[in-house]
């Protein structure tokens, strides 16, 4: 199914790989596709372990997925959504809704183009705003979750489309596999639902904004995940 009012701004990162592969797998084809790319834009291969099978293929480049499925796309030489050529490309898109796959914090100019950017954040907001939230929630609550919301200038404060909790993973590559997969799973849910009903984030005393996790805490979260696997 071609999504008439939904476009996507892809990069060459893992999140883009997970998003486009899982959208295509679920026959949800964005009506307009823009790919931001500079140079070859290829990532280093990673070993695909048994646990990852069925989530997405981290070694399939975004452009290959697009070509494999004969999807039309426009390439823009950029890596950041705020670059002038990206703004021009977005201006030219007809879709009201654009799926965001990363590429910098969106600034006023791009946010003022009348598009609604859908961001899937790897944490339940407002409790977990900011960076690498899944690690923090694994340590603090032994669970994790994701939130889809419309982006606005302030970080992670936009109106919520959906939230979903996830069981903690039983593998260790949370940055490159679990995080993008979890986001893609919720993205598929909301796109499939066909409803972009939004609601403001609740005011909460529990709200917190986290910064990129220190490896000592990251190691703890990963070891905890692997321990659960062992005890199963």
């Amino acid at each position: 199914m071609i999504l008439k009012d939904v476009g996507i701004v892809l990069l060459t990162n893992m999140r883009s790989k997970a998003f486009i592969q899982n959208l295509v797998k679920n026959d949800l084809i964005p009506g307009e596709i823009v790919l931001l790319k500079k140079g070859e834009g290829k990532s280093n291969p990673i070993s695909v372990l048994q646990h990852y099978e069925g989530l997405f293929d981290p070694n399939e480049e975004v452009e290959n997925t697009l070509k494999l499925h004969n999807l039309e796309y426009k390439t823009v030489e950029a890596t950041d959504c705020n670059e002038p050529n990206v703004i021009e490309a977005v201006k030219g898109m007809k879709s009201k809704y654009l799926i965001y796959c990363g590429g910098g914090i969106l600034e006023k100019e791009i946010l003022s183009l009348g598009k609604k950017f859908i961001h899937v954040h790897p944490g339940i907001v407002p409790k977990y705003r900011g960076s690498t939230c899944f690690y923090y929630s694994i340590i603090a609550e032994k669970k994790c979750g994701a939130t889809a919301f419309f982006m606005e200038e302030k970080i992670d404060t936009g109106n919520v489309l959906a939230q979903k909790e996830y069981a903690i993973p039983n593998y260790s590559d949370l940055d490159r596999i679990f995080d993008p997969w979890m986001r893609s799973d919720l993205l598929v849910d909301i796109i499939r639902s066909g409803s972009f009903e939004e609601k403001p984030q609740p005011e909460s005393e529990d709200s917190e904004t986290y910064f990129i996790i220190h490896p000592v805490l990251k190691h703890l979260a990963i070891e905890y995940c692997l321990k659960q696997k062992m005890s199963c």
Partner: protein
Amino acid sequence: MQYEYTLQNRLENSHKYEFSPYGKEFISAYKDSREESRKGLGEAIKLDAIIDRKFESDTAQKIKNLIRNPDDETLGRYIKKYEVTKKLWNAYSADWKRASDDYSDPYQYLLLSLSCLLRYRETKNLKMLNTALKLNDLLCSIELDDSLKSMLALCLDLEKEVVSELYSSLSVDL
């Protein structure tokens, strides 16, 4: 494996902590690095000795005041300043703009680490511990005057205590 976060002066060459390592080798390198840094620092200073002291930089003085009078909003501001720029300026204006050209005063980093660790002990807010770990990396990566070593000793002792407790609360070996 070496613990890369203290291998060079992190005040001048900050680390982004993106896609950081993990695993048994990594955690062993972290422990070795901290143990090495703790050697030669001597006895940790008593907290009261810090609280009674006056600091030259406005930022250091204000962060020190947070130890006795905790205010998570203000502490959160300093954490954000540090996390975003990996530096603390000697002074900030009322609207939190940089109001100094100097970021080199190690007391600011020591006091922020200490404030974060003490507040983490009270609240268990992981954001505080996360920033303290990064600050301690920075502090272990620079040369400190003898007069500052006992403060770093206190920060490292506190870090060891809370990290060990946290690991054991999730039954994960450290």
